[in-house]
C-alpha cells in the first residue's frame, strides 16, 4: 500500500517537473535544457526574499514565481532568439546556460541544511493506513490541476491550437499572422512559471541544493522522451512509469538505484524508439 501511494505521489512530482519543459516544447518547439536551473533558481530567489528581504512566505513565493517567469521571458530574447530553429545550438546553449547558472549558485554556497523552504502547513492525514503530509497533498492537487489545464490548453483553446500549428510549421503560421517571437518568449515564460510553481510546492519537502537542478532536468527529459514529446497522455504515462519504477527500485533493490531508473530509461528509449512510447512523430527517428 505504501508503495502504491508513494509511487503515485512520486509520479505526480515527476509530472510536475516535466510539465513546464513539455509545455515550452509543445508550444514553440524549444527544448529548454536550462529547465532544471530555472526550477532551482526559483527556490533560491524565494529563500532570499524570505530570509534576507524579510517578506512573508506567501509574497516571497508569488514574487519568486513572477521573477522566474520574467527571467524566462528575457532569456528568450537574449539567448534563444539568435539561435532559434537550429536544434543543436538550442540544446547546447540552453544546457550550457543551465550548467552556468547551477555552478554559479553552487559557488555562492547554495547547498546545505540551512537552505530549505518552510512547509505550507504542518501536519498530515492518514490514508488507508499510510501517513501523507499536507504538503504532499498540495503537490498532488497542483499536479492534477496542471495536467488538466495543460491538456485543455493545448488541445482545446484557440491559442493552444495556434501554438501547436506554429510548432509544426512556422512558415505557414507566420503567414497566417501569428507572431513568432512573442509566442516563443511567452512559451518560455510559461514553461518557467510552471517550473517555478512546481518548485515552490515541491522544494519544502526537502533541502535545496544546486544538484537538484540537474536531477530535475533528467527527470523532465526522461518523462518527455518516454511518453513522447507530442502527447499529454504520453507525459502522464511517462511520469507514472518512471515514478513507480523508481519507488519499486528503491524498495526492492536499494534507494541509490532511484536515479538510475530515469537515466537508463532515456538511453533505452532513445536507442530503440526515440519518438517515445506514445509519440506520434515517427519522422523524428530516422533521417532517411
Amino acid at each position, binding site marked *: 500500500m505504501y508503495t502504491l501511494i508513494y509511487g503515485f505521489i512520486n509520479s505526480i512530482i515527476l509530472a510536475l517537473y516535466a510539465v513546464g519543459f513539455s509545455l515550452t516544447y509543445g508550444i514553440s518547439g524549444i527544448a529548454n535544457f536550462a529547465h532544471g536551473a530555472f526550477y532551482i533558481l526559483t527556490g533560491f530567489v524565494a529563500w532570499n526574499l524570505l530570509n534576507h528581504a524579510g517578506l512573508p512566505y506567501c509574497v516571497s513565493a508569488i514574487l519568486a514565481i513572477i521573477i522566474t517567469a520574467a527571467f524566462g521571458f528575457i532569456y528568450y530574447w537574449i539567448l534563444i532568439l539568435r539561435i532559434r530553429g537550429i536544434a543543436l545550438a538550442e540544446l*547546447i546553449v540552453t*544546457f*550550457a546556460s543551465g550548467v552556468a547558472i547551477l555552478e554559479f549558485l553552487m*559557488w555562492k554556497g547554495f547547498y546545505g541544511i540551512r537552505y530549505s523552504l518552510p512547509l505550507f502547513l504542518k501536519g498530515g492525514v492518514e490514508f488507508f493506513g499510510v501517513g501523507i503530509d499536507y504538503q504532499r497533498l498540495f503537490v498532488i492537487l497542483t499536479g492534477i490541476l496542471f495536467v488538466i489545464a495543460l491538456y485543455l490548453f493545448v488541445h482545446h483553446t484557440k491559442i493552444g491550437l495556434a501554438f501547436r500549428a506554429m510548432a509544426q510549421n512556422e512558415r505557414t503560421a507566420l503567414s497566417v499572422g501569428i507572431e513568432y517571437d512573442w509566442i516563443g518568449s511567452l512559451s518560455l515564460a510559461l514553461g518557467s512559471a510552471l517550473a517555478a510553481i512546481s518548485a515552490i510546492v515541491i522544494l519544502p519537502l526537502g533541502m535545496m541544493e544546486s544538484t537538484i537542478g540537474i536531477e530535475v532536468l*533528467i527527470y523532465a527529459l526522461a518523462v518527455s522522451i518516454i511518453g513522447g514529446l507530442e502527447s499529454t497522455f504520453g507525459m502522464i504515462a511517462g511520469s507514472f512509469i518512471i515514478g513507480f519504477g523508481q519507488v519499486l527500485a528503491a524498495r526492492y533493490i536499494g534507494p541509490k538505484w532511484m536515479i538510475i531508473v530515469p537515466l537508463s530509461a532515456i*538511453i533505452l528509449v532513445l536507442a530503440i524508439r526515440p519518438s517515445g512510447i506514445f509519440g506520434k512523430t515517427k519522422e523524428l527517428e*530516422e533521417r532517411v
Partner: protein
Amino acid sequence: MKREIKKTRKKRLDRGIKARSDTIYVIASLRDIFYLIMPRFLPVLILILIPLFLGSYHKKVLIHACIYGLLALSWDFLASCGLFSLGQALFFGFGAYVSGTLNHYFHIPPSFTIPIATLGGGALCALLLAPVVRLRGVYFAMITLILPILLIKMIDTTGIFGGTHGISSLSAFPHEYIDTYLAIVSFLFILFLFRRVLNSDYGLVLMAIKDDDRAVMSGGINIYWRKIQAIFIAGSLGCFAGALITHHYQFLGISTFALDYSILPIAAVALGGQGTFAGAALGSMILVPLSESLRALGGLRIAIYCLILILSIISLPEGIFHFLSRKYHQFETIEEV
C-alpha cells in the same frame, strides 16, 4: 554647406604567396618556404622544448593542456562529420576504466593497458553508440550527454571498479618525462594526422556527410558505417587520453566521467574555430592554462567555460584560429570608397 563624409572600407589582399589559389602555393624563394613552415614548425618546437624548462607543477598543466587538446581534437573530428557529441567524458572515462581495471586486477603494465584501452575502448564506444547513428543529430547529442551521467551513477551505486572512492596506486610510467612527452607527441601527431586525413578523399566523404547526407547516400556510400568509423577514431582518441591521465595520476575514479571533460573541449573548439583542428589545439592551449590560473574560483570556472561556449555559438565568430590565419595570409588596408 554639406561636409563631405569620407567613407572607408577595409580592403584585403592576399600576400604574394597565396596569389594563385586556395590550395596551390607558388613557392618562389627561401623566404616563402620559411613563411609557410614557420607557423607549423614554431609551435612544435616550443612544445617539444618547453618541458625541459618547466617545474613539475607547470609540467602537469602542460600535460592537462595536451589531454584536453586531444579531447578537443576528437570533438572536432566528430563535428566535421556531423556528429556533435556532448559527452567526450564518455570516451575519456571508458579509456580510464579499461586501462585502470586491466592494470589493477590483472597487473598488466601501462605499455599494454594504454593501447588496449585505446583500441578496445574505442571499439566499445562505437558499438555502444552504433544504434543512435541512424537518428538525427539532436538524439546523438542527448545520448552522449546522458551516458556519462548514467555510468557515474551506476559505478557509484554498485561500487564496482572501485565505486565512489576509485582505485589508487596504479602503475606509473617508467620515467617522469615519458608521460609528458607521450602527451605532447601524441597531441601534435594527431593534430597533423587529422588535418591530413580531412584533406584526403576519406575526409572529404566525412565532411560531405555533414553537408548533405542524402546526397552522399545516393552516391552509394553507407553513411552509417562511415559514422561508426568516425566514432571509433574519435572515441579511441578520447580513450587514449583517459588511459594516459589514469596512469599519470595512478588513480582511477568516477571523476573521469565528469561534465568538465565534456564541456571544456567544446568550449576550446568554439573558441579556436571548428573545422581546422588547429583551432581546437589553439583553443585548448589557451583555455587550460587560463583555467589553471583561475583555480581559486573553483566551480565558477565551469560557468565561465559555459559562457565562452554560449558566446561563441551565438555571436558565431569564425574562431580565433581563422582570425589569426586571415591576418597572417592577407594584408589589410583601408581605402576610401
